[in-house]
């Protein structure tokens, strides 16, 4: 199937080659095939598809991934809910919420 993309201009993802030891962990955890391990080198091949889930950053043992993981989810309903409550975007808690069930 054709892959869906969202806005890429606002993405913050980057990989610092000097810190990276090419362990390949980021390749394994990314749900959108943003990274590739080829000839023992890891590089970004699909930056546009990044959804800023933060999995790569959290699992990079070298701290080689730059990502500005915002406070909340990519969810308009959550942002509205948060604005109402005067908090960060929220999914409405486990009992409510449209998505986070």
């Amino acid at each position, binding site marked *: 199937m054709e892959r869906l993309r969202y806005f890429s201009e606002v993405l913050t993802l980057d990989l610092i080659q000097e810190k990276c030891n090419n362990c390949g962990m980021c390749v394994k955890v990314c*749900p959108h095939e943003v990274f590739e391990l080829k000839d023992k080198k890891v590089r970004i091949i699909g930056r546009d598809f990044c959804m800023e889930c933060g999995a790569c950053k959290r699992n990079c043992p070298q701290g080689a991934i730059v990502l500005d993981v915002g406070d909340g989810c*990519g969810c*308009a309903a959550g942002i509205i809910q948060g604005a109402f409550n005067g908090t960060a975007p929220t999914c409405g808690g486990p009992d409510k919420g449209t998505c986070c*069930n």
Partner: protein
Amino acid sequence: MGCSDQKCGCGNSNELVSLQLKVPANDYGCKTPSNDPVPTSKPYIIGGIETRAGEIPQISARLDWKDYLGAFKVRWGIRRDQYRVDPGLYAVGIPNDRSDIFVTANYKFSFDLVRKNLNGVNAWLLVLDTKGVNVWCAAGKGTFGTKELVRRIQLTSLDKVVIHRRLILPQLGATGVAAHLVKEVSGFTVIYGPVRATDIPAFVQANYKASKEMRRVKFDWYDRLKLVPNDIIYNMRYLLTMLIVISVLSGINANGYSMQQALRNIVPIAKIVAAGYIAGIVFTPLLLPYIPTRNFSFKGLILGAIVSMLLFLNHSLDGGLMVNFAEIFFISSFSSFLAMNFTGASTYTSLAGVKKEMKIAIPVQVIFGAIAVMLLVLEIAI
């Protein structure tokens, strides 16, 4: 993996991973199955397995009609909050101290998916306390996280139950779990399995290697279709609010206010609101990849416009030309708003992107709504 069915694009948490090595037993107030007598009221528990850490409840890998009924209810948003499993360790089949340990969330849907796909396998299933939220969303919030995993390993005395030191986690849990920190603190190596629980058998067959295909999150037609019922229920509040507000306002006429007029208008207004609702909640998600633009709200606007134009051409809109135009603007705006809310259910939107989208979309929706109101005011005035 349990997340494969219902997910949001949640991916962020500002949880501080403050790892503690010593955890007081049961400080959550939760019952850990390994320390308590096997509860018999849970229909999926079918026995117990003796281990060095005590008796571990054994669960069935077959779902019965009650599980399916429960899953159906969850889809339609009925009593979803009560759909949880006690966190702790469970046995599937007859596992021993060398068997694999799979980890999942205590959302019953996730739990059911995993145990169903472990049918025929002897394994341990470690259920984390995610407050009844699926793996991906919980990982985004940090409840399916390093801290909870390490705590659960200790609470269940996992190091006594097995002699190996490997855990298999759903890949989407990676947003909340730092594999290297888990290893450092607990000694257990985290292996990330497939995204979807249905790939577990193939993953085990492939010697614990998740193929490219297994690692990728998809969002195909069927995935989107499954989200529709839930969205229909969840957004009902917008539908009802719109219906009531517009009906009440529709009583206004040149001579003041007429209650009868408002009551008479309820049915035609319900039709209009429903048209916007269906365009935004059913059509937009289903046709997502085929509508031009990456913008959800714009996709919704386009479909709202198409649906209302079709109704117009089919002479299905009530009122004069001016009112018809107002209706077209309203349906488009409402559909756009609802479609925008679908960003959360999609699997590829980022927070920064959604914020950017909303900055433009909300004013557009408000302007469209305002145009509709102005047209109606003109109609009355003329």
